[in-house]
């Protein structure tokens, strides 16, 4: 068992690796003796590391209802993630967590109609909530998922979206890509514009995650559609080292993303300095 407060991780193992896109892979991680390293709630994160390479915070993309392993979808974009993309099934990896405040799945979100909006790899943290909701389907209202990416090849979790999510009851999935391409019959355009064209009612609770610029324009669009900031949750990302609110790196104003976040309600974000 890891001791989160000592910064000392537990040794885990990568049991399988799935290619999602050319630069995103999903890693299934268990503890060395099998089973999940620790419990978590949707939206929470964990620190993955390889000694001598580095350590970084990743959102746990699997739902807590998955009792066998944890999944992390990792985009290749830095020292550790480059290295992780060279790793093989069976390789050891260290893990500590869970860190951060989760989405309020067991109180605020219960019984609500839910609108999930994601861009690119931003679907990773949202997927944890989506699958949690699907596994407790009767506890929640309708589900709308609006997801976009640069190209069709950059849409993550494509098989799961097509084979599982689309067939769930009271669920609509809307996909879009930035530019037209051969073989794509779905919508073309940026997420905020697509969102505005869908005619969705504003009585939903929204969970949005993606690149900062996408979040910014999505929020503007949502407000235009009549949503209130209090209805919207997002996850923020800043550089982290400790994960427990000590190292002082991930603050936005007086809030620490690792401890007070990464999940924030958007009206709370408005009260913070614009520095993220």
């Amino acid at each position, binding site marked *: 068992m890891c*001791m*989160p*407060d*000592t*910064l*000392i*991780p537990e*040794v885990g*193992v990568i049991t399988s690796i799935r290619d999602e896109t050319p630069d995103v892979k999903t890693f299934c991680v268990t503890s060395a003796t099998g089973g999940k390293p620790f419990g978590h709630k949707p939206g929470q994160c964990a620190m993955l*590391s*390889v*000694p*001598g*390479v*580095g*350590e970084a915070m990743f959102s746990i993309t699997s739902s807590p209802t998955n009792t066998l392993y944890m999944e992390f979808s990792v985009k290749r*974009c*830095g020292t550790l*993630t480059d290295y992780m993309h060279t790793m*093989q099934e*069976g*390789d*050891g*990896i*260290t893990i500590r967590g869970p860190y951060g405040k989760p989405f309020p799945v067991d109180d605020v979100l219960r019984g609500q109609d839910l609108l999930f909006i994601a861009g690119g790899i931003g679907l990773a943290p949202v997927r944890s909530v989506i699958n949690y909701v699907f596994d407790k389907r009767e506890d929640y209202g309708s589900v709308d998922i609006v997801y976009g990416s640069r190209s069709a090849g950059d849409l993550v979790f494509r098989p799961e979206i097509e084979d599982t999510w689309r067939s769930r009851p009271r669920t609509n999935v809307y996909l879009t890509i930035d530019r037209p391409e051969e073989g794509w019959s779905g919508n073309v355009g940026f997420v905020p514009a697509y969102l505005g064209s869908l005619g969705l009612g504003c009585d939903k609770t929204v969970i949005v995650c993606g*690149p900062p610029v996408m979040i910014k324009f999505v929020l503007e669009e949502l407000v235009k559609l009549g949503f209130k900031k209090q209805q919207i949750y997002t996850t923020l*990302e*800043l*550089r982290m*080292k*400790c994960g*427990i*609110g*000590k*190292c*002082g*790196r*991930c*603050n936005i*104003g*007086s809030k620490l993303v690792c401890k007070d976040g990464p999940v924030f309600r958007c009206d709370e974000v408005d*009260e*913070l*300095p614009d*520095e*993220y």
Partner: protein
Amino acid sequence: MYKVSATQLTDVLNTLAGTMDVFLPIRKDGQTNFGLYAEGVQADFDTLKTVKPPKEFFLPQSESLYKGVVDGKDIHIEPAAFADRPFVVFGMRGCDVLGMEILDKVYLGEPVDRFYEARRGHGCVVALACGRPASTCFCKPFGVDASDPQADVTAWLCGQYLYLEPVTERGRQLTHKLEPFLQDADAEDVAEYRQEIRERLEALPYNNLSLDALKDADMLEVFNSPVWDSVCDACIACGTCSYVCPTCQCYDIKDYNTGDGAIRYRTWDSCMYSDFTLMAHGNPRKTQKERFRQRFMHKLVYHPSTAGGQLSCVGCGRCVNKCPSSLNIVKIMKSLGVS
């Protein structure tokens, strides 16, 4: 209260060093820092401020967390041991003692930092009254009484004696070890000395700063103040202010390649550095203005908002003294309305 003849100071230190590590100010090449006492080492209690604050005995500048070895597909982790040896920091000034209180709020707050907790649990602090406070000192506005600093033991070097007043149980245990040298004394014996110190303090330029302007400061208003646009013009983006600060808490976690594995260690860090918040996809604090603002917002606004109004500054004046460009927190406080 007790007193020990100043001529027996060496015996006192040797006695303590027999049962624990003793860290005290030592002068080397013109600069004074806390260091490990051993027989023959000359303590420097005259210099007011050490370059590095004594927080390093509770939060070392570099500290190993564990050793990690990648062995084929396996990874082995050997956690570093928690501190288990008693020690005393002898001669900490009142400002630095308050600095420890501020660090305690961070490191002993949930979740507790176990490495820090272990050091705090094994360390005793003997606070020394400041006989000659300097013109850069401004601890009084933060509630420090430099003539009567409160720690495990309060000490005064006055006349021919070292006066000791145990304050906590740990302090009583420490003075108990010194029984053969102790003579009874009375608070009256240091009253005149304390009065002298208070008079000296009153004559200092920053002694009576009023921090009222920072009370209930509006975070966004201060953050968006035009003050930040030019106040950091002279900042060279070094980490001096952070590293000499008794309340700067930030650390980085890094790997040190040992050839047969990696030691993962943490090390003091500074928000003044350009890589502090650098991520693969960019940096939320792009210029020195944002980094500079962060340091002072943290001390004057962010920390107080989570710590019942307590500022993360203790008025030690080290940054006033050491900044290569003569910038410092007083200048920033004044530009934000402190007078």
